[in-house]
């Protein structure tokens, strides 16, 4: 049994498989992971996923192949009851394992943080006052969730409220996400945006769409019975098309404006007002 140098043999098998698999993961699997890349954030998320998959591959292969290798070569001969070597420890192996995993983890965390900061939160909801915000915000839109629909208000266009959304391409857009009742989450897969809509919280996400397309927005935080039906479709259009659309909307929804509260970053939630105590003072 001791003639075979299992260590070397397994290392070779693992190295060969890794060398084959990593490029496959990067160039074949990566682009097919089904990510929306229609914005700076989405693009970065897709790259990150590919990078993570590529880093994970050697580890997955190491353990996975080892399981197969052990199952094949470290067997008890049939009908016998032999004992293995009574080895309990190997400081060298342990230390190198700790070092390698620690370095990998550090690389991952630093990589993720840099990506997060460079892309202004990478399309995620970053709270009411994100520390790093882009200097070139071209448009603000407020996304309002309520059971079970989304509406949009446009502070730069008189605070008009529209049931649908169109946004201009190649513009850094600031999404102010809030809710009128329970927690929702505004998600646009194609643009890589996801931000929770909390009552009386303004949750800001940034994204810059980079191509014309129609996208689906959907609620991804459980908000009650029709949570699953809380989706709709919007479009990324050119700037002139957008201006035209928003003007149409302003005219169309002007009559409704007097029923609306004035534009604000957050609104009084509808839910909870059945409680007597809450209405009394303030």
């Amino acid at each position, binding site marked *: 049994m001791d003639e075979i140098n299992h260590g070397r043999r397994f290392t070779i098998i693992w190295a060969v498989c890794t060398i084959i698999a990593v490029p496959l993961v990067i160039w074949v699997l990566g682009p097919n992971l089904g990510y929306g890349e229609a914005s700076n954030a989405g693009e970065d998320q897709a790259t990150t996923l590919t990078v993570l998959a590529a880093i994970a591959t050697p580890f997955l292969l190491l353990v996975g192949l080892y399981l197969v290798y052990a199952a094949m070569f470290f067997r008890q001969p049939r009908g016998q009851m032999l004992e293995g070597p009574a080895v309990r420890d190997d400081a060298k192996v*342990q230390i190198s394992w700790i070092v390698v995993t620690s370095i990998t983890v550090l690389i991952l965390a630093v990589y993720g943080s840099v990506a997060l900061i460079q892309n202004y939160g990478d399309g995620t909801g970053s709270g009411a006052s994100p520390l790093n915000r882009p200097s070139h915000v071209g448009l603000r839109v407020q996304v309002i969730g309520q059971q079970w629909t989304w509406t949009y208000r446009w502070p730069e266009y008189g605070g008009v409220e529209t049931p649908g959304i169109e946004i201009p391409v190649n513009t850094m857009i600031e999404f102010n996400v809030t809710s009128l009742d329970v927690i929702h989450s505004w998600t646009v897969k194609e643009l890589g945006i996801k931000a929770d809509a909390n009552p009386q919280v303004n949750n800001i996400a940034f994204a810059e769409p980079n191509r014309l397309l129609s996208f689906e927005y959907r609620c991804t935080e459980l908000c009650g019975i029709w949570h*699953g039906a809380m989706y709709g479709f919007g479009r990324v259009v050119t700037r002139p098309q957008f201006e035209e659309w928003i003007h149409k909307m302003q005219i169309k929804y002007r009559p409704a404006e007097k029923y609306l509260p004035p534009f604000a970053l957050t609104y009084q939630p509808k839910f909870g007002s059945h409680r007597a105590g809450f209405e009394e003072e303030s």
Partner: protein
Amino acid sequence: MSLAYPHQSSSSVERPGWRKLVGFNIFTGIIGAVIGYIIGWYIGKALTTTPYYEYIRVNTLEDDLALILAYSFGVIGFLVGMGFANYPVGRMLGRPASLREKETGGAWRYFGLSTDHKVVGIQYLVGVGFFFFVGGLNAMLIRTELLHNTPEFVGPEKYLTIVGLHSVVMLGTLTSAVLGPFANYFVPIMIGARRMAFPRIEALTFWLLMAAGVILLSTIFFGGFPTGWTGYEPLNDQALMGMDSYILFFALVGISMVLLGMNMIVTIVTMRAPGVTWGRLPIFCWATFVTAVLMVLAAPMLIGTLLMAALDRAIGTSFFLTLGGGSAYLFENLFWFFGHPEVYVLALPGFGLILEMLPVFARKPLWGYRIAVAGFLGVGLMSFFVWQHHLFVSGINADLRPFYMLSTEIISIPTGFVFLAFIGTIWRSRITFTVPMLFCFAWAFNFLIGGASGVVLSDVPTNAQLHGSFFVIAHFHYTIMGGLGFAFVGAIYYYVPKMFGFKLNERIGKFQFWAMFLTFNATFLPIFALGLKGMARRVTFYPADLITLNRVVSIAAYLLFASMLLLVYNVVYSLVFERERATDNPWHSKGMEWQVPTPVPVDNFPDKIPDMRDFDPYDYGVPVSGGGAAPAPAGAGA
């Protein structure tokens, strides 16, 4: 002292059979539960009609207060009926502290308060198995609904209740899936003790869990609950009375967890036989210990949070309602501060079982004992510092995300230690692929995938797309069902010979393993793909192009369920048709639990507490020169 002991003498007299029905047992327990429920309900109702209550809450259409009190009193009534109050009341009157009278034999003790840790272990195995089955049935309903991309089977409202029941039943009862049956049964034997430190509390944890389970299932009579297992506010507050079942269930499970964990820790700390030093504690006891610490510290947070939610619902406070100055973020923070340690409560016992079984079938001592223990401790410690990775897109403390990203990824390092111990133990070993060993290998494979996907989720840029999608579902089913679930079933095969005295059929077992392993992967690998393609969680509407993939998943899930039924069949078959009496040590293990006779005597070690100073539970293998320490009896590794 030559005095009479009235208590003792009365118990030794054989009672007539009918007396068993009116003593303290499960029947009186149920009667007590009903009485308590009714009392609680009327107290609640009476309180609700006071002018004060009218003042605090206009909308009194829902009797949340009455229901919550009814459940609480019902549980108390149940416990009193079971006989849990006898000893405490006796002590209130000044009776001295004492052990319970010696346990008697017979099947009846499985249906009542028993302070024999082996009886409680078996009660737990059956009880948890039942709820595992209920959760599995709910999973099948989920998969049936998802056969279509529009709600056609149960509809969106019931769907949410089913998802909630599935997840809450699973998470609530499977937290005790290992500590309940296996740790209760084997930890005392492994450390050379005759019982747990607090036998009555041990029994209490089990019956509390069962009472909680009944409360949870009763939610269907009150309209179900729409929040999933996370119970986020303010949806929680808005929900119908069925929500109260969820709150009470989880709070009771929390209490049961605290007590179970406390009992385990105290037992391990104080009851070890001579020679069982910390450095030689079997690895399963270490895993139990760390899990118990997490339970004792994290579960109270859950109890507190849910009590706040209950107050919000019942007496109109506003912890979580923004309109009254509360905050939904507060709930999310508090919940996940418990929630993340909770998921390691579901993982660590699995680690322990696997590393305990591995040396037996590898015929090698456990490799890297100390690093594995360090791994447990590291995971346990770190798990308190990562909770906001569930809240990356919520807007909470967004600027701290790099920290939580780092801490989450750091958890991979101690988890990796466990893998290293696994790898080291089977290196150049002599593996026999018995059924438990197959499950060990499957655990490694599944948990690897689950863990790697966890790392993907912990990176904020990728989390942005994957949060709230089926990718998360796949991640945690790989870690829970693929990790804990496989370790649990493997441990059933491993330990049933000791617990019940018969061996499970090996052939059916192998078939069951392969069926379970393949169908499990066929179920949850496609779910990763679904998640990447944008399938959202907890929805009954999904894009039409995902129908095919979902049907594949559903069919695989049915087969997975069938493979689990095969396990039940195997138990029945091996018990009824082909009863092969197990020897004392069928696996030739060196662990203490296999050195005691089967069936284990009532006091485990009736004559003497074993002297374990020369005892090494991992004393396998032939000594080698160089390349590691000699197999000295000090099992600490060198």
